[in-house]
């Protein structure tokens, strides 16, 4: 039994809704800009995929307190949109779960707290640091939506929300739930920006995934959730089943805390096992939304793994991180959302720019946004720190 995708919600640098995100791609307008809200002292020298709304504006939209963490505000925005796609009568009779994912929790508030706390251990607003733990935002959003049949949070760095979607599908399959809202969130924080910067893998200018001249990633922020339903629950729906989450797999590179192995062993295993799960051959895949961060290491390892698995006959592929930035724990869900659009609408998402392929790989990404009639099976990759690698496959119903 496959989990069916029946709806979702998204917010990222490209917009606060599916329509706005698609409009950005249509206009070939990336979300990478100078930061307006992130209070880093390095903001002048770098571009960020920042959501174009202040905390105040996000809070006002949803009648929430502006003192909440940005994590909560972004998560609520996307999860609410996803939840609202479930018909009211179905909500009442179904066992619904909320599985979220984040890598930094409420770090945006914790780093403010530490400014005061480090001066005086008795100082600092506890109302800020209380948002620190990963589960806090998940609980807040679940309560607001009235979801209580199952609630949890996954934190596996950049693959977090792909794993949340995977757990959702598995819980449906096991018959433990009827509907799951699964995805993830991460806000831009000084903590993550400075962290990635110490690794010297942040490109101050627009990132160039898959390009021979790539120099690193750009950070972004956002949230996305998909509504997954069991076949039985979806029967009650009119005709709004978008696609199936037909394959998924999680593997570990077991090589290095932050770098992938040269042969991309973890990525290879994740993609191969996801294909197995979906009972598909590599040639069945029409498009890969790559993890494609734009770092030298990731793109080479991921590209090598794709070359090994697809044997030189590549499907269409690209990295949408050149439009959204790397949204860390949210990236798996944001890219899953885009992959669902590829299956349902035939949208092919491009790289923002591309000049020169990596010599050893000859992977040429799509560079223009267009609609292609038949996109049956789409793969979405999410890899990250700790060697955590996950691949998802979405298929036509």
């Amino acid at each position, binding site marked *: 039994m496959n989990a069916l995708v029946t709806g979702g919600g998204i917010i990222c640098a490209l917009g606060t809704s599916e329509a706005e995100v698609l409009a950005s791609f249509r206009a070939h307008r990336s979300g990478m800009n100078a930061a307006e809200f992130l209070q880093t002292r390095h903001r002048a020298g770098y571009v960020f995929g920042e959501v174009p709304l202040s905390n105040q504006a996000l809070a006002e939209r949803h009648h929430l307190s502006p003192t909440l963490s940005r994590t909560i505000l972004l998560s609520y925005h996307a999860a609410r949109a996803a939840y609202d796609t479930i018909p009211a009568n179905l909500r009442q009779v179904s066992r619904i779960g909320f599985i979220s994912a984040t890598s930094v929790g409420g770090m945006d508030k914790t780093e403010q707290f530490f400014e005061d706390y480090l001066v005086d251990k008795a100082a600092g607003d506890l109302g800020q640091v209380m948002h620190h733990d990963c589960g806090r935002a998940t609980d807040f959003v679940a309560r607001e939506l009235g979801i209580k049949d199952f609630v949890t949070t996954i934190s596996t760095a950049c693959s977090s929300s792909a794993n949340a979607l995977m757990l959702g599908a598995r819980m449906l399959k096991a018959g433990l739930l009827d509907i799951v809202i699964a995805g993830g969130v991460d806000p831009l924080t000084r903590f993550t920006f400075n962290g990635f910067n*110490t*690794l*010297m893998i942040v490109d101050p200018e627009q990132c160039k995934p898959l390009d021979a001249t790539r120099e690193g990633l750009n950070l972004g922020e956002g949230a996305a959730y998909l509504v997954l339903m069991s076949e039985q629950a979806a029967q009650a729906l009119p005709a709004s089943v978008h696609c199936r989450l037909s394959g998924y797999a999680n593997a570990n590179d077991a090589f290095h*805390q932050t*770098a992938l192995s040269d042969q991309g062993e973890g990525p290879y295993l994740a993609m191969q096992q996801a294909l197995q799960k979906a009972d598909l051959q590599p040639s069945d895949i029409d498009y890969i939304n790559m993890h494609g961060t734009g770092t030298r290491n990731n793109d080479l390892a991921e590209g090598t793994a794709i070359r090994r698995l697809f044997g030189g006959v590549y499907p269409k592929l690209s990295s949408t991180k050149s439009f959204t930035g790397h949204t860390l724990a949210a990236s798996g869900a944001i890219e899953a959302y885009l992959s669902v659009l590829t299956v349902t609408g035939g949208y092919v998402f491009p790289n923002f720019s591309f000049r020169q392929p990596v010599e050893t790989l000859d992977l040429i990404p799509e560079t223009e946004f267009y609609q292609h009639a038949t996109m049956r099976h789409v793969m979405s990759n999410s890899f990250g720190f700790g060697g955590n690698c996950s691949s998802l496959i979405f298929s036509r119903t």
Partner: protein
Amino acid sequence: MDALKAELKSLLVEHLNLTTVKPEEIGDDQPIFGDGLGLDSIDALEVIVLLQQHYGIRLTKAENGPKVLYSVNTIADYITEHRK
């Protein structure tokens, strides 16, 4: 120059928490990465920070690393050349 090298060795041991190595055991020409001292790419980044903190020297591109950070000798040369 010898004082600088001795200082560098102590800094490496301290900063990288090399509990199994004594500063004087590190050879001037010994490769410090890979099989030499067994350091890796993360240590390289730590050494870059160390150079910034102690000598005010910025290695802006990680790619310059392998040449400059090859041994205590090459690091000392780079410091001498770039120190203000």
